């Protein structure tokens, strides 16, 4: 299991090529998810993205979900790289790679990891547009069903359907 939380850019295949060979001996395949900064949101063109994180808790959460994936699925190993700081459109934000003997487990585990990462790892995105900088929000009430009938965060409620 490898976890990297870093400011620097990364190259997904270089990360995978550098993976300790012993840990993934016998792999028949790998599944990789790479998430990138889009160049537009629903509201405006994106000039940049700022990612804040909670040092210490981030690594701990990513280790926790990686261990959980290893317990649930028949995989050989996994890798997560997540950036923070200042990113430009089309930059890589995150990669999740999973190696397994049989491909079904790699698909399942990779999806499990990115889904869980997005709901539990303490990262927050702020989009910088010509109209200003705005926190990307993921409002549970809105996610559950529209704009009425729930309390939602009073801070700028922006583009909540965009990054699901």
């Amino acid at each position, binding site marked *: 299991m490898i976890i990297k939380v870093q400011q620097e850019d990364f190259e997904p295949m270089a990360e995978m090529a550098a993976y300790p060979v012993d840990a993934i001996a016998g792999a028949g395949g790998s599944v990789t998810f790479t998430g990138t900064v889009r160049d537009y949101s629903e509201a405006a063109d994106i000039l940049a993205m700022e990612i804040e*994180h*909670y040092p210490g808790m981030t690594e701990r959460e990513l280790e926790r979900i990686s261990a959980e994936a290893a317990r649930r699925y028949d995989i050989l190993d996994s890798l997560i790289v997540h950036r923070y700081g200042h990113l430009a459109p089309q930059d890589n934000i995150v990669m999740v790679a999973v190696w397994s003997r049989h491909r079904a487990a790699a698909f399942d585990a990779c999806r499990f990891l990115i889904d869980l990462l997005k709901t539990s790892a303490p990262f927050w995105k702020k989009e910088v547009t010509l109209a200003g900088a705005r926190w990307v*929000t993921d409002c549970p009430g809105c996610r559950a069903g529209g704009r009425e009938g729930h309390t939602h965060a009073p*801070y700028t409620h922006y583009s909540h359907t965009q990054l699901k």
Partner: protein
Amino acid sequence: MIYVKFFASVRERVGVGEISLLMPEGGVTVEEVLSLAEDETGVLLQDAHLLAAVNLQHVPFSGVVHDGDEVAFFPPVTGG
């Protein structure tokens, strides 16, 4: 002492990333720490969609906080 951290939009609303609170007699919950933090900072946070962590782990607002704990409040995460 209880060490309280704020992140992202919550940090910006409060104006600082970190405050310290005196540990009250008899123990407190996360919910109560939030009230104490509101008193201390003068910023109302109860109406926000907040998540909390104690010592780097997600916890419910009913979770117990001990002397020396680090308690963090932040909006729903948006990484990935």
